[in-house]
C-alpha cells in the first residue's frame, strides 16, 4: 500500500516513529521519548498523530506528557543554559547565578526567550561538584560561575549564534 504523506514533518516523522512501537505493550512513553529526541519537544501535531496511530485518547497522552517533567511541550531555545542546583552548587550560591540569568534574559526558569534563542533550566547535580557552582551551555561547562560572569556568557553565545545565523 502506498504511504500517504501529509507533508507536515511533525506528522510524517511521528508516523514513522510510531510504526516501530505501535504493537508493543506499554510503548507509549518510548514513542514519545523518541519523538522528543527528534524535535527536542513534543509538538501538538505529533501528539495528535500518536493518539490516532496508537488509538489512545489525546487527553490521556497529555496526561502522560504533563505528568513527567522530562517532556517538553514547546520548542526549546537554540541555546540551552542549564544551571546546576545540586547540593554543592546550591551552597556555593548557584541561585544567585540563576537569578542573574533570569534578569539578563528576562525569563523564568524552564522558559524560552521570545526570540527562541535561549532556554533557561535548572538541573540537579551534574556530577562535577568540584567545579561548583556550575552552568552548562549547549555542552560547554562553565565552572565557579558568579553572578558577575553571566553577562559575558550570554554575550558570548549571542555572538556565536549571530555568526552562524
Amino acid at each position: 500500500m502506498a504511504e500517504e504523506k501529509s507533508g507536515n514533518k511533525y506528522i510524517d516523522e511521528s508516523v514513522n516513529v510510531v510504526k516501530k512501537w505501535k504493537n508493543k505493550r506499554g510503548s507509549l512513553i518510548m514513542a514519545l521519548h523518541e519523538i522528543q529526541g527528534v524535535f527536542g519537544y513534543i509538538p501538538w501535531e505529533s501528539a495528535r498523530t500518536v493518539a490516532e496511530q496508537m488509538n489512545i485518547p489525546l487527553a490521556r497522552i497529555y496526561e502522560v506528557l504533563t505528568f513527567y517533567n522530562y517532556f517538553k511541550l514547546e520548542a526549546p531555545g537554540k541555546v540551552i543554559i542549564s544551571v546546576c542546583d545540586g547540593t554543592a552548587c546550591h551552597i556555593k550560591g548557584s541561585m544567585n547565578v540563576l537569578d542573574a540569568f533570569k534578569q539578563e534574559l528576562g525569563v523564568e526558569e524552564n522558559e524560552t526567550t521570545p526570540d527562541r534563542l535561549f532556554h533557561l533550566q535548572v538541573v540537579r547535580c551534574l556530577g562535577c561538584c568540584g567545579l561548583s557552582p556550575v552552568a552548562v551551555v549547549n555542552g560547554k561547562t562553565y565552572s565557579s560561575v558568579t553572578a558577575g560572569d553571566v553577562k559575558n556568557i550570554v554575550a558570548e553565545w549571542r555572538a556565536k549564534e549571530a555568526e552562524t545565523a
Partner: protein
Amino acid sequence: MTMIKARIDNIEVEVEEGTTILEAAEQVQVKIPTLCKHPDLCATAACGICVVKVAGRPNLIRACCTPLDNGMEITTRDPELVEVRRNVIELILSKHPNECLTCIRNGNCELQKLSADFGIRCEEYESIVPDLPKDDSTKSIVLDPRKCINCGRCVEVCQNQQAVWALSFLNRGISTQIAAAGGIPLAESPCIKCGQCSAHCPTGAITEYDDTLAVWSAINDEKKHCVVQIAPAVRVAIGEAFGLKPGELTTGKLYAALRRIGFDAVFDTNFSADLTIMEEASEFVERFVNKTAPLPLITSCCPAWVDFMEKYHYDMIPYFSSCKSPQGMLGALAKTYYADKKGIKPEDMVVVSIMPCTAKKYEISRSKDMYSSGVQDVDYSLTTREVARMLKQSGIDFLALAEEEADSLLGEYTGAGTIFGYTGGVMEAALRTAYYFVTGEDPKDLDFVQTRGLEGIKEAEIDIKGTKIRIAVAHGTGNVETVVNRIRHAIETGEELPYHFVEVMACPGGCIGGGGQPTGVTDKVRLERTAGLEKDDHAHQIRCSHENKEVQKLYEDFLGKPLSEKSHELLHTHYVPRPCYKR
C-alpha cells in the same frame, strides 16, 4: 453470595462481600463524611475526608474505597478523626478562593456544606489560590479551575461514564489542573456539551453557562414577543430547588410562574415531542415497510448524542433519524406557524427554552437548519438550574401558585410526549404510534416495559401483530460503543441486523438525569424523577402522540402530513462528520 460481618461504632453490620466501609456504615445509619466520592462513580479516593479507624491497623483507612472485612472493628468518629478531617478541609480551603457569596453554587456546594458542618471559622493555612483563567468557550458549560478541588469526578465522568475523553488532569502535585488535552479551549476538544461533569462537580468549578441575564432583558424588551417552552424532564426536577422531593410534578405551577415573570406565551416541549414521534415513527415505517432508506433507525433528539455521533461514529449518519429535537421543532413552529396565526414577525419574537440540558445551548446554533424560520429558531436555551434561580429572584412563591394551562397551538401534550424525559421513553412513545401506523389500531397494552429501567443497554423484540421489531435503548454515551459495534459488524458482514430501531440518550437515565438538572443526582433520584413522568403519562387520557388534537390541527392547517416538504423544511436536519480536535 458471601456475607461479611463486622462492627461499625459498636453496631453489628452484615453486608455482601465487596461492600465498602462507607456503604456498610450507611446501612446502620452512620454517615461518614465524603467529598470526592460520588455514588454514581468509582472511588477516586482523592480527598481523604472519609478516614476511619480499624482496630489493629496503624494507619487511618479511607472508607469510600476500602471493602469491609470479616470481624473488622471500625470507629468512624472520635476527637482525633474529627481533627484529621478538619485539617483536610482546611488544606483544601487554603487552595480554594474565598468567593462563596458570589459563586453560582452558593447554597448547594458540597465543600461549603462540609466547611459549615465542621464549623471552620478561620483560615488556618496561608491561601495559595492558583491564578487560572475560566474557560467558557463552549457557551454550554464553564470551567473555573480555580475552584477545582481535584476530586476527579468530572474526569471519571467524561472519560469513563461518557467515553468522550474531553477532560483530563494536566500536570501533577500542587499544579494539577483539569483541562482539555494540552490545555486547549474545551470548545476545540471532543466535548459534547452533555454537562454531566457539571452535574457531578461538588463545587463551582464546572457549571452551566449562564444565559439568565440575556433572557431577562429579552423578557423586559417591550418590542419583543417572548415565548417559552418547557422540556419533559424539567417538570419533575425543578421542584427540588424549592424543597420538593424528586419526581413531584410541577407542570401547572411552572406554566403559572413563567407567565408571572413576563413570558407572553407558554408552550410545552411535550407538544413537539408528540410531533417528533409523528415524524420519527413515520420515518421508521418508511424504512421498515417501504424500505426507502436503510435500517436501523437511530434516534436524534439528544444533541449531545448527535455531537458524539458526528465526532466518533459518523459512519452511522445514514441511519440517523433526520428529525430535529423537540426543542428545535417547537422553535421553528413558534416563529412560523404560531407567528403567522398571531400576525407577528419572526424577527420580533424571542423563543426561550427550558431544558434539563446544557447541550441544548449548543444545539440552537449547531447548523443552518436551526435557522429554518429565517432567523434563529430558538434564541436562548436555559437549564433547569438557571430557571430555578430566575424564579427565586422574582420573589414568586412557587409552591403556592395555582396551576395553569399551557397556551394553545403548541401546548397540548399526551402521555407519550412526557415520557421523552427518561431513557426508553422515546422508543416507547414511537412504538405506540408505529404500531398504529402499521396496523391501523392502537396496541392493547401501551406500556412497553422492555424499554424501561436504568440498565445501560436494553434490548428487546417487540411483536407488532406478528411482525417482530428488534430494538435497543442505550443511555450514557459510554454505553454506545457496544451497540454501534454490533450494528457495524452486521453491516460489514451482511449478517442480519441486530436491531431495527435504536434509542440513545447521552445522559444516564435520559434527560431526567440531564447535565442541566438540579445537582445531587443518584440512581435513586433518577428513578424518582422517572416515576414522576410515568405518573404523568398514566394521568393522561390520551397516551399516543397521533391522538394529540393540536398536533392533528397543525398537520391539517400547516404541515400537510408527516414527512411533507414543509415538515422537512422546518422539522428535519442534516449531519456532518466533525473532527474531535479542531487543530
